[in-house]
């Protein structure tokens, strides 16, 4: 049986999610043995033409060309997996969605007229159908290995659908909101990172994006009780998954 082929693609992003693949030091050679890495420019000069069994797509869509390019990638991919906060929610660069793009461009570039960019940063799913999403800024390399393993085994990858709190409780991490009064987005954030922030005594900043059915209104009401003003509440929701609908709406009502 031929090994399934893998392609890795990049859009507006920091490379951190695809780096997570190279960070699977213990599994990398086994992965490279089990699947054919057909297109992965960050790691290899070699590029085999499509179609591909599995495409990992990092980054968000921010330019007209990229909005076209993703369609070609979709057409060549049997299974398309969006990896990371950029690809699943628009990433940190989606903060532009809430601001005036021209003003932003002028702030960074002496000649903003050279730029050809879209007014918004949008997730891959806003442009083409996506089969699976790996969340996080960056993704968890354990979830990435699980994805590859599940694809090889023909099963659904185990990707939690519940809130970050479940990981904290299972891990025995004290709730930073209850025990320290720190604002934490964990209750409305998808699990998967391994409760990294609360484990170091820090409130979750929501990098895995909202959990399904997130009750952001109740969450932000609690933040207000903890002493955050409207602007702080808005900024708390506006980080790496700011454009995810639940967080975007929650931010609208504040600040």
């Amino acid at each position, binding site marked *: 049986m031929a090994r399934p082929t893998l392609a890795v693609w990049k859009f507006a992003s920091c490379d951190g999610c695809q780096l997570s693949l190279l960070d699977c030091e213990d599994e990398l050679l086994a992965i490279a043995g089990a699947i054919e890495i057909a297109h992965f420019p960050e790691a290899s000069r070699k590029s085999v033409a499509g179609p591909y069994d599995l495409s990992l797509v990092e980054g968000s869509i921010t330019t007209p060309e990229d909005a076209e390019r993703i369609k070609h990638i979709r057409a060549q991919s049997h299974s398309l997996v969006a990896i990371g906060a950029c690809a699943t929610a628009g990433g940190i660069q989606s903060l532009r969605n809430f601001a005036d793009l021209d003003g932003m461009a002028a702030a960074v570039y002496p000649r903003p007229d050279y730029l050809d960019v879209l007014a918004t940063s949008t997730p891959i799913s806003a442009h083409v159908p996506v089969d699976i999403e790996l969340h996080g800024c960056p993704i968890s390399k354990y979830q990435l290995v699980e994805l590859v393993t599940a694809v090889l*085994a*023909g*099963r*659904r990858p185990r990707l939690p659908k519940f809130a970050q709190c479940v990981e904290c409780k299972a891990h025995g991490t004290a709730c930073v909101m209850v025990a320290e009064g720190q604002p934490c987005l964990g209750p409305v954030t998808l699990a998967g990172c391994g409760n990294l922030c609360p484990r170091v005594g820090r409130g979750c900043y929501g990098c895995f994006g909202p959990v399904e059915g997130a009750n952001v209104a109740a969450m932000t009401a609690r933040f207000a009780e903890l002493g955050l003003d409207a602007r702080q509440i808005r900024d708390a929701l506006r980080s790496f998954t700011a454009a995810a609908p639940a967080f975007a709406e929650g931010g609208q009502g504040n600040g």
Partner: protein
Amino acid sequence: MDGAAPMLPVRCRVASAQAEGADVATLTLEPVAGALSGGAPGQFNMLYAFGIGEAAISLSGHDEAGRPMHTIRAVGATTRALTAMEAGAELGLRGPFGTGWPVADQAGRHLLAVAGGLGLAPLRPAILAAAAQPGAVSVVHGARSPDTLLYAGELSAWAAEGTPVYLTVDHAAPGWTGRVGTVIGCLPPALAGHDPAAVSAFLCGPEVMMRATAQALSDAGVPPDRIWLSMERNMKCGIGLCGHCQYGPDFICRDGPVLRYDRIAARLTLREI
């Protein structure tokens, strides 16, 4: 079932695999080592596809050699893997679990088996048992379309042997001259000639279909404590430990899946229970 390790599957082999349509297959299983406990009509086993997962699958009968049979529809990864298995493939089995159809208790009464879609699979062993008494059972079976009627060959055989069989489809196809509509439409003809008070009914199918059917039957005079439904809920352990299959106070895996209508009639009217 091995009482010491209720979560550990027994190693089984597919003795034969029979396609029942596009995405449905019946597997006959035999243990590779050791023995399987029998299992009564209405009970289910947890079938494990290696590395993929487990699914609750009802017994759809036993073959002449007493080997359990399961009819499975491919809806997700596990059931896809199970339905793709060929003779010789190995899988894990835990069970049997749950309550069965109270077939023996219906002696002297007329049994009406009402099946929606794949719901005919768990009813099949009950129908076969009841059919030992000529004229004791009638079968109502509804399907989406004529080509998704389950056990089509067996249905004709039953009819030929004198068991009344009423078929209906949601969407007719060219050449279909039978009924079109829900199973409710089959109930008046199926009940005709029987004293409803002396009729017992076993229902299996989608929850909405069972709710409407049970209501219609009791409206027609079939006693609510003579109607049984086979319920479905998410299920992970099969032995009342995982909590997933709770339906009000009942664990579907342990107190069900076959539950008596009068016990759950109120619950059936509640949303999201």
